[in-house]
Structures are given as C-alpha cells and as structure tokens.
C-alpha cells in the first residue's frame, strides 16, 4: 500500500516516497515522511509493517551517527547498506524479525551515486532504479522502458512524474502526495512535493 521509488542518474540519485500513514482502511496521517537521513549524503527510505519501519530506520540512523562520532568520519553508502542488510539478516531468524522494505540512496566521493534495494528477507542489490510496494508492479516497466544511465536531473524528474501519473491512473489506492529528495555531491536536497492532478 506504500510506495518507494529511486532513480540513479549520472551524478545524483532521485528518490520519492508516498506520504500516507494508514491503519486498515483509514488514513491516519497524510503528511508522513518515510525518508530518514542517515548522514549528509545518505538517505534511507523505509516502508513495511507499522512499528517496525520507524524503529528499524531510527536504529540504523543512530548507529550510523555513532560510527561517525567514534571514528571521526562517515560511513560510505556501500558500507551503510551492508550494515543495514546485516542487521536485517541477523534479526530475520530471530523471534522478532523486522518486516521492512528499504531503499538506501547515497553519494560517495569516490564511487559516485548509488542506490541500494533491500527487502524484508535481507536481500541487497545495487540497482540503477528500484521501487517498493504494490505500485512497483505498475511502474517498474516504465522505468525499464525509459531509463538511461546518463539521465539528467530534469529527465529523471520527468521519469518520476510519469511513474506517479501511472499510479494515479491505475493504482486502486489513492496516494495524494509524494515527498521527493535528490542527493548529489552537494548533499541532500528537498524538492517540491509531487501532487498528482485529479487526486484530492
């Protein structure tokens, strides 16, 4: 019912998440932010079971910050992604697994932009574009069709808008707005919320 999407460009990563926090049939909150800032250049987008998302994401967030305090430098996106996956994997076969689906997006000085797809079975894959949720079924083929590795920021934004318009058109649930962020060498930028036309 929730939706995450990430698109990696030449020197940036564009990510978006929907803003609905729902409990069975009721939208309890329509401006929920599902993006967690792990560091200046790393964002974690987290959806899944109700309490697990925030608990797990904040746990990772604080541990990344602790690493920085102890060692004086920040973890790279690759290391952060692997750390997150390791935690998911460790809890997977415990009595209390975290049922969360994640996208980790970051910019590394040496490696450039990176988008990492993780799911509740603690799979990890570095991908040029990715999506989570039921909406992914509808939008992955759009991404397959129009994605190119050398997308500019505007082109990536247009691609994102295409995906969201398709959701607005075909997805049974109404997702009224989406938070959009961009990560590049200058850090994280909050972009304008996308509100598909026709949705209340």
């Amino acid at each position, binding site marked *: 019912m929730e939706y995450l999407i990430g698109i990696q460009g030449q020197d940036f990563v564009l990510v978006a998440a929907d803003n609905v926090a729902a409990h*069975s049939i009721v939208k309890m909150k329509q401006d929920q932010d599902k993006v967690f800032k792990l560091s200046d250049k790393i964002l974690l987008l987290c959806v899944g079971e109700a*309490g697990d998302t925030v608990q797990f994401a904040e*746990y990772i967030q*604080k541990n990344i910050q602790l690493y920085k305090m102890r060692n004086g430098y920040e973890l790279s996106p690759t290391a952060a992604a692997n750390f997150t996956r390791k935690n998911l994997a460790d809890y997977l076969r415990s009595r209390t697994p975290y049922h969360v689906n994640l996208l980790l997006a970051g910019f590394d000085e040496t490696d450039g932009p990176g988008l990492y797809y993780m799911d509740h079975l603690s799979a990890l894959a570095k991908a040029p574009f990715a999506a989570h949720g039921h909406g992914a079924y509808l939008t992955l083929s759009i991404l397959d069709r129009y994605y190119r590795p050398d997308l500019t920021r505007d082109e990536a934004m247009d691609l994102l808008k295409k995906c969201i318009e398709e959701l607005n058109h075909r997805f049974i649930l109404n997702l009224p707005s989406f938070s959009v962020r961009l990560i590049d060498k200058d850090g994280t930028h909050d972009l304008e919320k996308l509100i598909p036309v026709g949705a209340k």
Partner: protein
Amino acid sequence: MALQDLCGFKDSFLNSRWNLPASHPVEYLSESPIQFVIAAADTRSSCNGLVACPASQKILPVHSHLVGTTSGTSADCALWKRILSRELRLYQLRHGRRLSTAGAAKLLAHMLHPFKGTELCVAATLCGWDGGEQENISKMGNETDDLAKTSESDSISQAEARGRNPCPSPAMSRQHCSAGGKQLVRSGPSLYYVCSDGTRLQGALFSVGSGSPYAYSVLDGGVRWGLTVEEAISLAREAVYRATHRDAYSGNCVDVYHITSHGWTRRDREELREEYYREKERERGKVKERREKQEGVEDGQSSGRKK
C-alpha cells in the same frame, strides 16, 4: 488477493477474546491563535459482547499537562499508562523539567515495541502541552503571548533509538541532545498517536478504536482553522455521540478533557442517552415546524385561488 488483503481489518478491536474498552477517543489540536487540545472518549468497556463496565475512564491523566486516551485492552492500557507516568515523573525529578509530549510518545513506543507480536494491545493518544516551565519562568502574566505562540520550532528528539531487547527496561539514562548548550523545546499543544505495534504518529487530529471511522467522518466535516474552544468541544462530543450510536462496543457516557498551557481541565461526564432523546426532540420539532410552514404556504396558495 489484492482487494481482500488491502482492505482487511487487521488490527480489529472487535476480537472478543479480550476485555476491550473499544473506545474512539477523539482529539485534536486547534490551529487558531488560541491554542488547545481537546480529548473526548466514551466510557463503555466491553467483554465478549457484554458491557463489563458502563462507566469506565478511558482518558487517564499522566501529569498536569499531559493526558492520555486509551483504547484496546483496558488492563494493558491502565498498566502502561502507570508505567509511563512513573517514567515521566522520574525524568522530571532527574532533569528538572517535564518531558515533552514527543518524548513521552517516543518513550511509550519504545517500551511497547518489544511486545510486538504478543497479545498486548494498546492504542493511545497522548495530548499535552509542552514547555510549561520555560513559559512560567520567562513570561509571568503574559498569557496571551503564550497562547499565541506557534509551535513551529523543531524539537530535538530526546530519546535514543534502541535495539531490540526482550525485556522492556525503561531507559535509565536518557541523553539530552542540546544544540550549542541551548535546549530547543517545542512549546504549545501537541498530539501523538502511539500503538502497541510500534506506530508513533504526530498529528492534529486522531480518532482511535472500533468506532473511529464513524467519528472521523463527523470530525473531518466539522474541523477547520479557527475553531473556538466551545465549537471544538461540541464537535468532539458530537463525534463521540455519532460513533456510540453506530458502534456496538462504544456507548454510555462521554468524557471531555481540555488541555491548555495551564494544564488539563475536565468537563462533567455526560450521558449520551440524554443526547439521543434531545436529538429526537429536536428532530420532532423541526419536522413539525416544516410541516406547519408547508401548510401555511398551501393555505396561502389555496386562499389565493378562491373557489
């Protein structure tokens, strides 16, 4: 798969195994310059289709400026409210000031999270007013300024994220994060929804419990910027009344709490049965009025067309 899964009532409080005070506490913050929080709840506790108690209290004060509404299993709610009060009081003694509502919500959510997957069922909303001490110290007697303060400043989270541990040891040493020595505390009204599945949401309007959809529809229609206190209270009462009418697990009386910078105050408990009869009276009166007006018009028309 799709439609059934998506629309399933997963966290239904209609499960008859528990003693469920399936209430629908209704709270909201006002956005007008006169700021306040209203909390309203019914008073029915049910168990397996019987009304176990028609006069239970679902809104439990936590401290002078924080009130919590409870929904779910009544024993669990009462216990965790007491534990929360204890921890907040300890915090206050150790640090010399009250923990904000956001901090209290985070504390409760972290305490409940280890019990996820068990049959613990608590859905609480914490309604409070933050920043009392600073206001009292710095602005004695400037009450209008206090009330007009907007609560846009970010508050620094006061709880550490905790890894999973099976025993709910309440944090003994909560670290203060202070930015450059100055503590940023959001002051003003605050409303948080905390659930035993670990959810913690901040918002301006929440309705919780088995009757909550009925209450939401009334609230969404009536809530707007600039409500006065009286309008807000009557809207909350109306929402609870409508929900008790439709939901079998809600009923009896309504409690209304009003929270401002001076703390919480409580209205007298009102029987909703009286409200039902009053409404029936009003309806009868309106129908009679309309019929009389109609007859008056017809008389006028027929007298105009003299036979």
